[in-house]
């Protein structure tokens, strides 16, 4: 029974959102606002259940996952930084949140340097170093180099650079076209998902 009621609620909300296609209306606005409220509660609950509880409360107060007393107490540091992050709620001490932001930005930047070199630059350059024994390989190498030339803004766009840049533009357009095609596919798939739900789960038109 609860499942049937739920399916009707879901169908009603689906149609309420779709009604925006006709024009903006109270049903759509209701559904949109409901989504905002419900998701905000999710953010709080998941922060508690998957962050604060297992990574702070359990190790600090129950000793779970903490090898020593020092391991427990040092967690006061990230807890403090986490609370500092929330100082933005209070305009007078909002500047303290910069400390917490600085911590995350510093770590992310440190990871970014090594990650981009090891995870992108080296393997992707290595992948481009192929023998030019086939048309595909030639095209690929030309495509990579000319795309880089196109984005190399700090050099005058004339002569060979201009030709390279123009060639790069052609490759980039092909890439954007391909991405557009895939994006269309993705969006249609989502529509299929919703209409499938209405026809199958709600109206039982398809078995």
């Amino acid at each position, binding site marked *: 029974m609860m499942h049937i009621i739920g*399916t009707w609620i879901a*169908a009603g*909300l689906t149609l309420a*959102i779709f009604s*925006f296609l006709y024009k903006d209306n109270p049903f759509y*606005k*209701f*559904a*949109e*606002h*409901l*989504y905002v*409220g*419900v998701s*905000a*509660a*999710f953010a*709080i*609950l*998941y922060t508690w259940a998957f*962050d*604060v509880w297992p*990574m702070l409360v359990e190790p600090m107060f129950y000793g779970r996952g903490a090898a020593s007393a020092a391991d427990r107490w040092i*967690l006061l540091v*990230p807890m403090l930084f*986490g609370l500092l992050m*929330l100082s933005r709620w209070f305009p007078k001490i909002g500047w303290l949140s910069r400390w*917490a932001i*600085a911590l*995350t930005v*510093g*770590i*992310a*930047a*440190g990871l970014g*340097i*090594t990650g*981009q*070199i090891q995870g992108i*630059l080296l393997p*992707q350059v290595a992948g481009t170093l192929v023998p030019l024994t086939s048309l*595909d390989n030639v*095209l690929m190498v030309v*495509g*990579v180099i000319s*795309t*880089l030339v196109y*984005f190399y803004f700090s050099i005058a766009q004339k002569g060979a650079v201009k030709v390279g840049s123009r060639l*790069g533009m052609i*490759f*980039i357009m*092909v*890439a954007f*076209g391909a991405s*557009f*095609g895939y994006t269309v596919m993705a*969006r249609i798939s989502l*529509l299929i998902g*919703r209409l499938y*739900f209405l026809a199958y789960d709600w109206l039982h038109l398809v078995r």
Partner: protein
Amino acid sequence: MKKEIPLAITFLTGVIIVVTFFIPHQPLGGMQQRLLIWYSIVLGFTLLLGVDSLLRSNLQKIMRRAPGWPYAVVVVAGFLATLAAGIHTWATTKDLLSLGSSFMYIYTYMIVPLQATMFALLAFFIASAAYRAFRARTLEATLLLVTAAIVMLGRVPVGAEIWDKLPGLQDWIMEIPQMAAKRGIFIGVALGTIAMSLRVILGLERTYLS
């Protein structure tokens, strides 16, 4: 205090992370792991940042009976009901993914249809845009359009029914010219990210503090 301490924190943490990449041995390796754990914990708190302003603005709207205030009631009621269901589920099962719970009921029958349908709307907008704005005005636009058409046909079963070489052509576009351009873009982005990260660590880039 307001600038120097954050800059010092960024410098120290950034340097430790880079150095421990090269020297992962103890005690540096342990220090790196500790920082990563702290990052994970602190980042979780950012999820909460938006909630405060959202609730505050909606409550103010209700108090002032501002235009559209009944929708603000929907936001607050949806928030409170979900929070109550979540707290109840957590208190009784310690499992917020428990499929039979009231919390998951809200997820399955409210969040999923709302979020999924919002994104499904984009299919309609993209169709309308394709009809009105997708014009072969220049060589570049034509190239984009032709590639998109080949990919859209070649990537679905009907493509092979129309012309049996279409899927192969689509695969080739994705694997050679498309891939080459994306690789160029990703290498460019990587170089940019490295430069920006260095500037951040060295304190030359400070926009994140504003």
